[in-house]
């Protein structure tokens, strides 16, 4: 904590004023006026090595005089520390944009505009991003009803207005051909839309439009009790659902300040690593499928099915498992489950080898992946890359190592890093990560801690069914918790886990009620996808497909 003291001193000295520092639930918060935001951010980035802007969040407090709060979540790789910056604004006030300091702020600010109607000064492209262009009103404001739909009559025209000056280039006289891909295109896996200006086969300029799968996760979270939000988190990154469950529950637990029992921790690690494997399987398999290697896809999917079977044994569902609860897990794993996993690990090792043989030295695969979408570490950081995409540039940043949780620190595994940061390196990193995940699972499965799978606090966890039906106290506790709800204390917290795609963060604000007051997700692929138009410039259309596959964009968490 001395580093924060130091930071405070430095800041006060540099700006010659007393800054307001707060500490809520392990996180440090610095409150600023809108006027000084730019200079302080600049200073923090340049002299205090806060090189990551993880997420920008808006919160609405209708009863306050300054109704809105905007939070900037900063992270420093060098110091491994986080800092939250807050500004308070009224509706009509404009906030200076941070995107010239942190390019990744671009979309986050647009999202705040979309959801709250707050404007950012000098932002070149202050338009709606997630909701459709005919949408009226600002859905995340507290007075917008969660179920008020607005219909769209016409889809958005082809547009190229993502230029730094906000003006669309005139392409008529340049002999450029507009090309629209998506939002329903097989190679985009889901609902991404890319609009490109083609100079022959080359992409001269590209623009992306997102929001075709905006399912209002954050609003849904505000109108559901804490435990009922868990199924919604499943559907964020649906390729690796359990990881989202874990990320969300960890956040709520941090706010409640409880620690889950060792057995639950072990189960969560297993679920997370299994999900990491199947997420990478989808990523690699689908990328191979797009490049014409159908065998690779089927090969990979065989193993995915095996993991589904393991999930099914655990809880009955294949894809959307919702296995965690606030305070632990939902139930005891079935007999022999851990043994089955060990068996699977054995098979998976063979599976990874197969994929390796099929693809790694495959000439077509190499030619189509190497030198595509190259990005260096500095750029990657400024765009807010995390996960395999960042590590492929050579930076060794993995939250499982630098901010370990659930006992990752005591496990023996390594973090693979790449060298060039192209699509091929990302593939290699993913492949190696799968191997490491298998290694982790084996270690955990071989000595699962004994004990309970959940904490037994009657204000947090429902009693077991046999208690509810068997004795009056259990029945009462059950009733109380259902009626009264799980109520974390007032406060806020940001908690991040290393998901398959990168840092998955949840920012949770509680007002002491039974539902989250505000829940913001920091989806790892949101910042990554933002850089797509820049990375693809000058490449061929076919490279766009490769790049998209290597970035592993999952529409569910991108659009939420």
């Amino acid at each position: 904590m001395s580093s924060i003291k130091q930071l405070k001193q430095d800041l006060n000295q540099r700006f010659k004023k007393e800054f307001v520092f707060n500490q809520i639930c392990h996180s440090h918060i610095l409150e600023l006026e809108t006027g000084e935001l730019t200079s302080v951010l600049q200073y923090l980035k340049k002299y205090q090595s806060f090189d990551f802007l993880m997420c920008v969040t808006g919160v609405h407090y209708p009863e306050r005089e300054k109704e809105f709060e905007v939070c900037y979540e900063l992270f420093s790789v060098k110091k491994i520390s986080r800092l939250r910056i807050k500004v308070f604004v009224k509706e009509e006030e404009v906030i200076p944009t941070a995107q010239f300091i942190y390019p990744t702020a671009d979309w986050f600010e647009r999202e705040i505009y979309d959801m709250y109607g707050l404007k950012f000064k000098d932002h070149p492209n202050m338009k709606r991003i997630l909701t459709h262009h005919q949408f009226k009103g600002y859905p995340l404001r507290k007075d917008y009803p969660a179920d008020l739909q607005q219909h769209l009559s016409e889809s958005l025209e082809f547009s190229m207005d993502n230029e730094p000056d906000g003006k669309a280039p005139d392409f008529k006289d340049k002999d450029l051909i507009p090309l629209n891909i998506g939002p329903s295109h097989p190679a985009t896996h889901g609902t991404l839309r890319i609009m490109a200006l083609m100079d022959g086969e080359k992409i001269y300029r590209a623009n992306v439009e997102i929001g075709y799968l905006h399912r209002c996760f954050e609003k849904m979270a505000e109108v559901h009790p804490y435990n009922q939000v868990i199924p919604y988190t499943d559907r964020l990154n649906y390729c690796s659902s359990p990881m989202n469950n874990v990320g969300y529950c960890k956040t709520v637990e941090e706010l409640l300040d409880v620690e889950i029992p060792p057995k639950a921790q072990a189960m969560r690690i297993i679920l997370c690593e299994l999900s990491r494997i199947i997420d990478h399987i989808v990523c690699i398999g689908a990328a191979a499928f797009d490049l014409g290697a159908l065998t690779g896809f089927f090969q990979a999917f065989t193993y995915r099915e095996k993991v589904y079977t393991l999930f099914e044994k655990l809880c009955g569902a294949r894809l959307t498992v919702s296995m965690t609860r606030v305070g632990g897990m939902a139930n005891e794993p079935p007999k022999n489950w851990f043994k089955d996993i060990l068996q699977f690990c054995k098979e998976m090792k063979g599976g990874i080898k197969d994929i390796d043989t099929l693809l790694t030295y495959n000439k077509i695969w190499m030619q189509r992946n190497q030198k595509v979408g190259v990005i260096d570490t500095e750029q990657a950081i400024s765009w807010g890359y995390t996960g395999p995409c960042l590590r492929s540039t050579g930076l060794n940043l993995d939250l499982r190592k630098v901010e370990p949780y659930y006992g990752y620190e005591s496990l023996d595994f390594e973090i693979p890093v790449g060298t060039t940061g192209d699509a091929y390196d990302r593939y290699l990193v993913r492949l190696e990560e799968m191997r490491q995940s298998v290694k982790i699972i084996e270690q955990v499965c071989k000595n699962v801690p004994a004990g309970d799978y959940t904490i037994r606090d009657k204000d947090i966890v429902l009693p077991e069914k046999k208690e509810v039906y068997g004795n009056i106290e259990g029945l009462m506790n059950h009733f109380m918790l259902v009626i009264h709800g799980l109520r974390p204390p007032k406060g806020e917290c940001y908690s991040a886990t290393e998901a398959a795609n990168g840092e998955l963060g949840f920012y949770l604000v509680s007002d002491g009620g039974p539902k989250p007051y505000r829940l913001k997700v920091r989806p790892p692929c949101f910042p990554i996808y933002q850089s797509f138009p820049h990375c693809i410039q000058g490449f061929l259309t076919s490279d766009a497909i490769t790049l998209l596959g290597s970035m592993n964009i999952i529409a569910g968490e991108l659009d939420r």
Partner: protein
Amino acid sequence: MEEKKISLSNDKFQNLESPFFTSRMDRIVAWSRRNSLWPMTYGTACCGIEIMSVLGPRYDLARFGAEVVRFSPRQSDLMIVAGTITEKMAPIISRVYEQMIEPKYVIAMGACASSGGFYRAYHVLQGVDKVIPVDVYVPGCPPTPEAVIDGVMAIQKMITENRPRPYKDQWKPGAYR
């Protein structure tokens, strides 16, 4: 080739060597349609991942004559809407549907496509049947692959029996929103 003598007696059906068989035209058409459904998977969300399993090695929709997945609406006759359709997506899906040539069928796979599912939310279409006519609804979130296969078989049965489809024949675009 040696000419075969065809007997016109009553036992002609037992005569397996006979090169003829008789049927009604509509039945033959239905038979061929049923066994070569070319699906277009309109996968948008989590159900789109599950449809991969349906087509994948373990469940293998190919066994039911519906494996030639076409991503072009003009080449396919069965649209499987797998995933949430948002308001932003609605005009696009109805345009894609219009591009499919007759006869065409639609399966709404999963709770979201059927009714909006548990997203009673400001940006989610409350069921794809608001914008295109649906033949079969498959419940589940996501439905198990078995259920999807059952849905495809239901369509096949519909085709075989030449069942009337009033909801489709009387469909007016834009009337149900």
